[in-house]
């Protein structure tokens, strides 16, 4: 397709520019800069548009700009062969163009930096406040549901429990099994130096029940379900579904948050126990293969060396971790506002904060249980 051709000629009466072809958006870069320069040319200017094949609003805009800028400087401009339609378009775009900024106002570099730091700090405090408020509202709703169990959305809770628990059995089982293998293998290499390979059983049994089983499960649940909670609720928030619930008279905390929270609290101990068992199976498997300890002996030794309190330690921590994961996920989802990018940002935040909080809490639990004498 032929573009646009400009012919420039000079005579005594002034400068003449002949335009032929398409004066359209597609070729704007071919003619717009030339026309821009012509604005500052003090000679009387004639633009001949008789051979114009097509003009659109961009072409009309460029002509309007030329005429206006030259008019303001008092230079003479004549447009020859302009169709009525094109003239009407020029008038229209001229009227339409206002003093319009493209981006929100931005301050200078140093100020922007200060502003960012300030916003970061104030956002942090606001987030903390909002989180505490959310926690309070959630606990209140939970209390209401416990006081009147008929208000519990049972179907929703079991659906969520299935998504959090049953659907993740495969991945958590495999992961825990492999972790069990790694612990037993690495432990065996070190303990062999003292001729104490048999203590691999103590290592695997105590470590998985107390710490690793529940911690790895919590991390996987945060990645799988905490993110899902944030994304689901966030998208609903964007689509005004949460507002719709409020107007219908369904409290969103009770409808969306409480079932998810209970689902996570129920599913986490089950998953953690299952994860620990799978890790022990992994350890048993590698002990049998590389240390020659038969499974029957392994199981007998496990019963002897792992105190029952180790199981309790794991099972007490698990529902608390589930609660933390569900609350952060739902909180971040509820904080979404504005645009789609926010959903992604909040989902990431939900996972990162959930894992961080789980590990911090785990450290506190370690101190607490030591203090109890459950070592």
């Amino acid at each position, binding site marked *: 397709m032929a573009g646009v051709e400009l012919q420039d000629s000079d005579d005594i009466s002034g400068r003449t520019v002949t335009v032929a072809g398409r004066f359209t958006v597609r070729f704007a*870069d071919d003619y717009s800069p030339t026309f821009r320069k012509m604005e500052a040319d003090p000679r009387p200017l004639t633009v001949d548009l008789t051979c114009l094949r097509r003009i659109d*609003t961009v072409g009309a*805009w460029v002509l309007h700009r030329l005429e206006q800028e030259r008019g303001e400087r008092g230079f003479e401009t004549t447009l020859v062969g302009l169709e009525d339609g094109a003239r009407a378009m020029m008038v*229209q775009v001229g009227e*339409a163009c206002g003093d*319009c900024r493209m981006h*929100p106002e931005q301050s200078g570099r140093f100020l922007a930096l200060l502003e960012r730091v300030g916003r970061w700090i104030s956002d942090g405090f606001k987030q903390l406040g909002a989180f505490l408020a959310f926690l309070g509202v959630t606990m209140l709703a939970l209390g209401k549901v416990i006081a009147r169990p008929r208000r519990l959305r049972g179907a929703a809770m079991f659906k969520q429990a299935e998504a959090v628990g049953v659907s993740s059995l495969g991945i958590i089982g495999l992961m825990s099994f492999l972790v069990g293998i790694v612990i037993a293998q690495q432990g065996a290499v070190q303990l062999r130096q003292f001729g104490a390979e048999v203590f691999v059983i103590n290592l695997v049994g105590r470590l998985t029940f107390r710490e690793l089983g529940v911690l790895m499960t919590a991390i996987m649940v945060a990645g799988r379900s905490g993110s899902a909670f944030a994304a689901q609720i966030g998208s609903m928030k964007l689509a005004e579904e949460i507002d719709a619930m409020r107007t219908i008279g369904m409290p969103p905390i009770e409808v969306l948050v409480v079932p998810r929270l209970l689902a996570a609290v129920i599913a986490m101990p089950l998953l953690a126990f299952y994860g620990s068992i799978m890790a022990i199976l992994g350890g048993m498997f590698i002990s049998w293969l590389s240390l020659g300890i038969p499974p029957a002996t392994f199981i007998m030794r496990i019963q002897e060396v792992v105190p029952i309190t180790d199981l309790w330690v794991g099972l007490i921590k698990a529902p608390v971790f589930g609660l933390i994961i569900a609350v952060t996920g739902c909180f971040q989802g509820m904080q979404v506002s504005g*645009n*789609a990018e926010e959903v992604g940002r909040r989902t990431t935040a939900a996972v990162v904060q959930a894992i961080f909080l789980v590990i911090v809490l785990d450290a506190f639990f370690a101190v607490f249980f030591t203090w109890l004498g459950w070592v």
Partner: protein
Amino acid sequence: MPDRMETIIEVKDLKNAFGPQVVHEHLDLDVRRGEIIGVVGGSGSGKTVLMRSILGLQPFAAGEVSIFGEPVTGLAEKEELDIRRRFGVLFQNGALFSTLTVAENIQVPMREFFQMTPELMDEIAAYKIGLAGLEPSAGPKYPSELSGGMRKRAALARALALDPLLLFLDEPTAGLDPIGAAAFDQLILDLKRALGLTVFLITHDLDTLYTICDRVAVLADKRVLAVDTLEELQKIDHPWINEYFGGPRGRAALAASAPSPQGTG
């Protein structure tokens, strides 16, 4: 002129089905160059599905759809882009990019397809914003900061960004106040006269139909029942058409449109 009557969109024997639910069957429709064609039909009659089929966004079960003489399915990437550049679409809910300001939204197609100085792009965005009937202050705002009507105008400005030859509008005046809707109608008419635009317009707004449409296609019984001027359509004896144009709203719109200047094709 004979080429004035050239067909821009051609739909032949289209069939669309979602599972067992058949939306369109044996649907035919021709849209001619330079006309504003209104598409009407009851809720759920598949107006938007038809538009999506024409745009190539909706894989259809059977039939042929072509725009500018090219089939919409099975095109090479470059040809497809070449066609897409020539039409603008206004989606029902605006579909503005939520992470960009209104002005940046308008500049997206320009950036994507053409080389331009940023200065010219800013100027173009500024007058498009005005053309679509927005205040200049809307330029640096994000879509989430706009009202529903303003969002619609911003979406129109983006649809017009490349000065398309063909414009698809899905319920453009729904949710606008009557003054705004009338201004919108006038804007479409002006653009059509100035640019030789062809417009595919889905609407429930009877005033819009009477004011700007050259022809109206009635979607009912899973196909295009009839395509004709409004006067001719009203002579057709079909229960839906009778009810649509003969109802209280239809009569009111007809009475209101009588003295107004009708756009000529």
